């Protein structure tokens, strides 16, 4: 996925550091401008001896913790924290610690998703007179600026008052007049070698007096005090520069306060980054966090605790030129998939659900991009450990599916799967797994023949189908197999 969220803590660091780099940090709220934001994460608490030791060290690094009133919130990529009673306002440091320790590690349900609280953020409590809503989001045609005078927890009720304007993506060919520096079609390769690839000259910029900024922060909105207008316009223009230069796809502040000194102070912030731009932004992003060795943390979405198998596949994927994905949906499920291709894998899962057996779907798994034999082997092993983990005497099916490959050598990828099947000889029988294969593409006949052969060798049921059979036919066959199980009826359910 190209767009990934970062924590509020990270987002604020990214914003402040980049404003400073761009020379736009001149007029910021004192607390935000000084970077007053502290993180309390479960892993830090557990690695620093006692919590008291950790908090003492934190206070030493952030002296303001003991001298100002504080705000404490979970920092777990979910919103509506106030409404869920998860924000402590205007507290002192010991109350903050008590608030966090009462909640750290507990499970809460937010927006229908249950997760475990593991990260909090502490900031100074900023008295302020006004709360605004600021949002910059990517759009195919450019970027959309949104601004509302009625920011805060009730923004959805005031959505009609939010103004929005599109900032068109610039046409880089018309920006710098001549072709100098770009002529010579292959220049790209050369630029790349220097680690660039970015063309800072063509980053879109907005001035505080530009039409777009003035359109969302007009002079004549009675809800915006006149002395706030120039401050907010300048801040919005600055935020847009940060947003564009860091390849953000979302920068939202709700609320954006104007503090008692008349300076902008983002109280809450949401940031999404385009991870495709990581190759050129490594330093800008990495240098902006204090986590780990300087690389940016992209936390899992709220409520998404990864099982060891998923983590293992993530690691495989990370270190491979190919793509390998695994999500476990139901460890007790009896329909398991290992499908080639990002598009086809979704359709296999769709078909299981559409046929009424979503509750039996064990996983979503996708591999593509011509993985090496060893990679498919490791991947298939991981998957088979899940398929065979629960030998309860009932039938299971493994769907080794895929469309007609364009260029992936089917036989080569199957070789890795076959190796893994051999490793699970015995366990496959114990879990009563039937393997159904459907695939086409280069060398598919040899691949299918090899799969049939391993079925005979291991004495497991393997049936193979080529491109002449509908891609999802094996889903139907698989469901028939578990339906016919005398040991237990499956669980049909509607989506």
């Amino acid at each position: 996925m190209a767009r990934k969220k970062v924590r509020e803590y990270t987002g604020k660091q990214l914003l402040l550091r980049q404003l400073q780099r761009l020379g736009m940090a001149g007029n910021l709220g004192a607390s935000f401008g000084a970077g007053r934001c502290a993180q309390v994460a479960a892993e830090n608490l557990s690695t620093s001896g006692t919590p008291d030791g950790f908090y003492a060290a934190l206070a030493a690094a952030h002296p303001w913790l003991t001298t100002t009133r504080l705000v404490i919130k979970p920092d777990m990529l979910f919103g509506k924290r106030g409404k869920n009673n998860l924000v402590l306002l205007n507290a002192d440091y010991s109350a903050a610690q008590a608030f966090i320790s009462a909640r750290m590690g507990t499970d809460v349900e937010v927006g229908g998703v249950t997760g475990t609280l593991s990260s909090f953020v502490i900031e100074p409590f900023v008295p302020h007179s006004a709360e605004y809503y600021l949002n910059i989001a990517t759009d195919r045609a450019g970027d959309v600026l949104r601004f509302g005078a009625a920011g805060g927890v009730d923004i959805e009720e005031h959505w009609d008052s939010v103004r929005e304007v599109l900032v068109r993506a610039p046409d880089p060919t018309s920006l710098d007049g001549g072709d100098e520096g770009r002529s010579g079609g292959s220049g790209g390769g050369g630029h790349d070698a220097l680690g660039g690839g970015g063309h800072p000259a063509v980053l879109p910029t907005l001035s505080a007096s530009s039409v777009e900024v003035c359109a969302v922060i007009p002079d004549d909105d009675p809800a915006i005090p006149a002395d706030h207008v120039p401050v907010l316009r300048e801040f919005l223009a600055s935020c847009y520069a940060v947003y564009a230069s860091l390849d953000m796809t979302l920068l939202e502040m709700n609320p954006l306060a104007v503090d008692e000194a008349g300076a902008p102070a983002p109280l809450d912030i949401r940031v999404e980054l385009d991870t495709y731009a990581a190759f050129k932004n490594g330093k800008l992003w990495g240098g902006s966090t204090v986590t780990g060795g300087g690389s940016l943390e992209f936390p899992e979405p709220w409520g998404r605790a990864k099982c060891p198998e998923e983590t293992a596949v993530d690691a495989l994927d990370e270190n491979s030129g190919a793509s390998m994905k695994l999500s476990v949906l139901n460890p007790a499920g009896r329909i398991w998939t290992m499908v080639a291709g990002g598009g086809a894998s979704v359709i296999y899962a769709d078909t299981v659900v559409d046929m009424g057996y979503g509750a039996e779907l064990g996983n979503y798994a996708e591999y593509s991009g011509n993985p090496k034999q060893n990679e498919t082997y490791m991947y298939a092993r991981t998957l088979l450990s899940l398929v065979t983990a629960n030998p309860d005497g009932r039938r299971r099916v493994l769907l080794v599916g895929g469309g007609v490959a364009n260029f992936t050598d089917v036989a080569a990828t199957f070789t890795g799967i076959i190796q893994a099947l051999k490793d699970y000889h015995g366990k496959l029988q114990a879990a009563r797994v039937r393997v159904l294969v459907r695939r086409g593409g280069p060398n598919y006949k040899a691949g299918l023949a090899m799969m049939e052969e391993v079925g005979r060798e291991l004495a497991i049921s393997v049936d193979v189908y080529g491109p002449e059979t509908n891609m999802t036919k094996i889903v139907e066959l698989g469901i028939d197999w578990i339906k016919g199980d005398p040991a237990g009826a499956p669980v049909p359910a509607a989506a």
Partner: protein
Amino acid sequence: MMDRLSAIWYVPSQRIRVVSEVRCLEPCDCVGGYLRGRRVAPVFLPHSPFSCFATAEQEPLLPPLVCSTLSVAAMAPPPAPAQTADGSGGASLFSPTTRALFYNYKAASVQRMLDFDYVCRRSAPSVAAVITPGAPAGGFVKAFFGSTEVALPVFPTTAAAAAAAPDADVFINFASYRSAYASSLTAVQVPSIRTLVIIAEGVPERHTKMLIAAAAAAGKTIIGPATVGGVQAGAFKIGDAAGTVDNIVTCKLHRPGSVGFVSKSGGLSNEMYNVLARTTDGLFEGIAVGGDAYPGTTLADHVRRFQALPQVKLIVVLGELGGDDEYIIADELAAGSITKPLVAWVSGTCAPWFNAAEVQFGHAGAKSTSANDADGSGNARDGSASTKLAALRAAGATVPESFEGFADAISGAYAKLQAAGEVGDKDAADASVAPRALPADYPSALRSGAVRKTTNIVCTISDDRGEEPTYASVPLSELMTPSYGVGDALSLLWFKKLLPPWASRFIELVLVTAADHGPCVSGAHNTIVAARAGKDLISSLCSGLLTIGPRFGGAVDAAAIAFKDAQERGVPPDEFVEGLKKCGRRVEGIGHRIKTAENRDKRVELLSRYAAEAFPSTHVLAYAKSVEAYTLTKASNLVLNIDGCIGALFVDMLMTADQFSPAEVDEVLELGALNGIFVVSRSIGLVGHALDQRRMKQPLYRHPWDDVLYASPERPPPREHYVQATAAAAAAAAANGAAGEGLDD
């Protein structure tokens, strides 16, 4: 630097067949080309590497031709297609004459394009030129067009490629995600390029959006990023789209059908081509727009094109969850701007079963649901598959209940069209265009067992194909254990034997003993001179090695053979020496420049002592010593030298190691293996000398004058005299009336 260069057709059996037109940009007016194997211009491109082909033909030169008269009708690339001539209003991106510029050469992908071209009977390959950043001008890459090999010109820049192939209006960009932006931006600005295909996955969104803006301003079409491309059946195929030739024929992509297909996924496109071949008269054109959030052209953009293309009778769309593209199609269907029958499926109906946090829906804005409720109907257009399917169904698209029903839905829509007379029977077009059979690629034919061939090379000493290399079937890991040494590696690779430890140790001792003999011997001297002349290490080493021969270090074999032969035949030493002398031959292995009976060669002594202790027997050495005893009576420096000692002991080693038959021993000697021992050993010292000189940065060596005796001969007669003498002889011959007969000058 070439100005215009059309594809050069290279026929191995006939050399160059046709170069349609070539002109060199250098101010030399060189114009050249080949016409049916004959060179047609006197000066053939001195500035281009293509001139190397000029020497391949030994045919008489024809009078020079002017560029414009070089017409090569049969093979010349077709002219650029007239845009919108088909009345599609610019909707047509490809045709059977479309040619492409291929950026960042990928051999397999280019070959797949040309294979498609050949199978669907295109007259010329669809790849006009290859762009490789930083490539030297004038290069080319080879590819097959059927069984003929063609040379595709390679250019360092897109501008140069476009200038050489102005009719190529498709730019296929295989650049990485890092450089896709810059290379595409350049291509957008090249006037002759109308369509760009960006293959890379991982292009930053901001880059893509700016490319979209640039393409919009320039009126150009971008397909991708993150796409496999697309195919127009029987006309043009992008890169790896539509897979192998088998698949192309199975899916009937070698001839046009009447279905326009568009999807996000390249893998599913190919799957659907297969479905379309079974359910309809086949694909007219299929496009995968790519899986990114902002593809250069959207599903809706291509649906609009299909609406405008007269050849497309049925539109098939395979969408997926996320984004709002399908709603745009639904709106245009409902509004009546899309009138052709449209069958659609949207994948992702399983999403509700997934953890909601895992699947990214719709827009990132705070209120994406409300913000997208553009029609005010209250129907939230949330990007979910089910909502999209409902919208398409409501707008009049044919939408099945599940993907399983997609093929039947398409089949039904086609049947309706056929009933209305819009399309023919789905198999009707099959007879009209038969695919041209493509020769099998040798590697795949070999894999499938369809062909066999004799090998050109046999290797019996090593194998690098398995998990680890083996020397004479002994795995390297075994040889790297402490009980083995370089002597074992040598004997495995040279003799295919694993020798007893004493024998291996002997080989190693020899290697150590002969590794160097100071800077003054011929080989080392030459190495030093070469190194000081600034030559590289290998040249310096070779300079020394090439000195090894009968007089320097190369006598080991000869000595071994001679001593062994005489010892076996029981020739008394004196007869042996005198016999050689009678034939005018030296006694190899005997004699040293400085060593004498009193001042023995230490190396000979040490090797002899080792052999006495370790060898089961040393008959040949004993014989050599007896020869030495005789020669010493003639002169005190006629000692057994290191060559003779090594030679004799090597024969003893071979004969007593219990591994070699007598015939094998002779074979080893005849093959010259023993000289090899000296070469390997002395290389160590020669490399040392070369490194030594280079390390000290020694200047060029010049031999001093006073070390040379200059002894010039008398001056030969002056040339005038010679010329006069010849002329006089000729005159005499002419006078004799037998002109030139017997005259040899």
